[in-house]
């Protein structure tokens, strides 16, 4: 059974990764980001499941994963107009390079191939 202290560390670690990945999206650095978000989503699912089915508490709140980012949420996280535009740009980038929505990429069982910014996987 996982202890509260370990769970806290787990959430903090997830939050650190979340900050890093979203900051990368906000700066327009999209390369291979989708693969990283898939790992992050798995971590998030574990955190929510553990919390939901045990006596563990949220002494640190995990940043919520959203598939449909809204201005209100992103501005609330402290991003400016340009950074928010870059995050929306990432969602467009996923659609263009993977041929499906971000949500579908994260939920799909098949592996996602890395795509260099602006280009579909495999193109040179």
């Amino acid at each position, binding site marked *: 059974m996982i202890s509260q202290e370990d769970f806290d560390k787990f959430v903090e670690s997830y*939050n650190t990764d*979340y*900050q890093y990945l*979203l*900051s990368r999206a*906000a700066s327009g650095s999209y390369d291979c980001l989708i693969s990283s978000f898939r790992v992050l989503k798995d971590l998030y*699912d574990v955190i*929510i*499941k553990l*919390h*939901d089915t045990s006596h563990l*508490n*949220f*002494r*640190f*709140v995990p*940043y*919520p*994963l*959203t*598939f*449909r980012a*809204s*201005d*209100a*949420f992103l501005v*609330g*996280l*402290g*991003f*400016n107009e340009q*950074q928010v535009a870059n995050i929306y740009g990432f969602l467009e980038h996923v659609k263009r390079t993977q041929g499906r929505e971000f949500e579908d990429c994260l*939920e799909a069982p098949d592996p996602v191939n890395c795509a260099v910014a602006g280009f579909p996987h495999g193109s040179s």
Partner: protein
Amino acid sequence: MAQADIARLIETHRDELVQIWVQAVRADQSIQSDGDLSEGGLVDHVPVLLDEICEVLDTGQKLTLHNMHEARVHAYTRFCQGYRARDLVREITLLRLLLIDHVNRTLPDAPHLFPRQDYFAAMHTINLYLDEELRYAVSIYTEGATVPQPIAFV
């Protein structure tokens, strides 16, 4: 008709429903936390939350942790905005009543086209979704969590 048709009844009136909900929240004297919020801040993630509800209805999925992401975003955002927990409960109540009233008002009065069990199944889904949001909100409001730092300033 089926649950997917109820999803469309909500989807096609989404922005109008959000506006009515904003007015209801502003008019509710028991809600104090909205005073400091702009229109955008109050509307927040609600349109996206409605999209997710519609998707669950449309696909006939059971509610799981995988299709309630936007509900958690809404609760989280209110927590970060300093919204009082009881005000969040009240605004969710207003949203719940608005959705139920809207569906009742716009559903065709034709039981042969729309079986009662489909209507109740849709109402169960909407209620469960909003209750799960509240359940999550109770956790983050009461378990001693601190408000996370804005990412852009980390």
